[in-house]
């Protein structure tokens, strides 16, 4: 659905994105992770033809961007760096204006589609009020409605839950999962690890303009070959496991060996009680921190 090769953008001498090779497949919920200023938004803008790449190629829905923007973009819904509207007009009027501005927005079905979308994002009751009276969360919902109004095949969302309360975040997450289940591919750019972890199937991590990893979430969180153990009798356990303990943190021990059952038998055999036992999995946070930290060791010049 999205494929970039050697995508590079320099603003004068500053390199914002360099050599990016993205691969987003159909039906993915792709999490594009990166810290603030890592080049996420510049990348999103290049995918949508707003910012023109210095070099490299972009393919969206099988066509070259930005050359084929007029055929690609009608099939894409997007939220770029926060929603934007005409404040003096109502939410409904705003959606109608954007829908009428471009292709693929049938006038006949417009008001029905808009009502349905406002309903879906939970704005049906306030769709008539001017947008300047909306809260940040309501604007965010309206922005999402605007992206969805023409049932796009690909959704490109930049920080979609920004400004939403926990309830709103949950609703939007359910909505995105439902859309994905119905066949929409979702490209989600975010700096929120938890959001990506809960929603995405594939993850790309960008750090200072370079893609440091791109893999399925399951692979990134694969067992590490070590076992996580929690016991009230730390000292005894450490004595028994003599040398196999990699690290300890209070009652928690990380032990070499990927077989929790073997470890359990060993400890219980020695009369050590075990609270918790299981293969160690790294959280996405650990993966990302390790990858970006490794890079800062290698790339930072004195």
């Amino acid at each position, binding site marked *: 659905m999205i494929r970039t090769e050697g995508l590079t953008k320099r603003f004068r001498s500053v390199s914002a994105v360099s050599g990016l090779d993205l691969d987003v497949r159909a039906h993915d919920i792709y999490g594009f992770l990166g810290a603030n200023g890592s080049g996420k938004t510049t990348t999103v803008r290049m995918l949508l033809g707003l910012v023109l790449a210095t070099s490299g190629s972009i393919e969206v829905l099988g066509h070259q961007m930005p050359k084929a923007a007029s055929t690609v973009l*009608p099939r894409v819904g997007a939220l770029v760096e926060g929603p934007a509207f005409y404040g003096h007009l109502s939410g409904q009027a705003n959606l109608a204006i*954007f829908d009428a501005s471009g292709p693929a927005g049938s006038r006949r079905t417009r008001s029905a589609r808009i009502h349905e979308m406002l309903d879906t994002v939970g704005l049906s009751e306030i769709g008539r009020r001017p947008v300047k009276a909306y809260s940040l969360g309501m604007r965010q919902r309206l922005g999402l409605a605007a992206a969805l109004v023409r049932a796009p095949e690909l959704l490109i969302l930049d920080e979609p839950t920004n400004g939403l309360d926990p309830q709103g975040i949950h609703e939007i997450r359910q909505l995105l999962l439902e859309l994905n289940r119905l066949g929409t591919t979702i490209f989600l750019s975010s700096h929120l690890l938890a959001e990506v972890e809960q929603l995405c199937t594939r993850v790309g991590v960008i750090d200072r303009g370079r893609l440091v990893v791109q893999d399925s979430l399951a692979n990134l969180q694969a067992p590490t070959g070590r076992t996580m153990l929690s016991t009230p009798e730390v000292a005894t356990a450490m004595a028994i496991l003599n040398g196999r303990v990699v690290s300890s943190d209070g009652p928690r021990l990380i032990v070499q060996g990927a077989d929790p059952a073997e470890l359990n038998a060993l400890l219980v055999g020695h009369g050590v009680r075990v609270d918790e036992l299981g293969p160690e999995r790294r959280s996405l946070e650990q993966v990302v921190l390790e990858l970006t930290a490794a890079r800062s060791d290698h790339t930072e010049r004195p």
Partner: protein
Amino acid sequence: MIGVELSKLFRRPRTWLTLVLLDALPTVVAILLATTHLGPRPGQGPAFLSAVLTNGSLFAVAALAIVLPLFLPIAVAVVAGETVAGEAQSGTLRYLLIRPIGRTKLLVAKLISVFSFVMAAVVLVAGTGFVVGRLLLGHQPLSAAVSSVSGSQLTPAQIAFRTLLAVGYVGVSMLGVAAMALFLSTLTDSAQSATLGALAFLIGSSLLLTLDAATSLQPYLPTRYWLSFVDLFRDPMLLRNVERGIGLQAVYVAILLGAAWANFVTKDIKS
């Protein structure tokens, strides 16, 4: 797209406020003239103002002459400066472009909406001038002949026709400012900067027109032929400066729109 741009422009309360303010000045002048009967002496003050006390129909043209030097170009610069920079400022520009609307198409739609505003403003000022003039000033019958600037008599039909020409000419005269504001509007993300830049261009031009040392530049200044619409009320019509004025505006419009287009289609939209 063009329909959408027009509806955006005319659904904005500010557009109507601008038009009302634009009509307020000539109306105030008409009220003052009607209550005091102190018209400027012929040859002084804004064009036609001395004649309107005898024939109110001429106040349509007089109203144009009143707003032409400053009020009208300011209104045009505000609206044209808003076009692209205003959308950039509010963030809606990126959503329009990914809708998608081709950049050239967006620029053309903006240009047409600005031109529509200019024409609406000019027609409204002339119309208000006519109504206010008929109501408050010189109660001559509509059929009465009017003295031309050259002194001979013009029939009401001739006056009506020439007033229409003047409306068109004043509209065209504003296009240079509009194109300048539109160009600046593609350069900056601040609507105010674009408007003020276009006004600086205008004031610079007006200033150089008063300077003898700038004589060689004067035929090329955008405001040089603005007041030439007065020539339309000579007998016979003196078209030389009007033609030059139209030609000059066309050149400014072509150059500035070319620059606006070249800048906008290759610009990184970071707003």
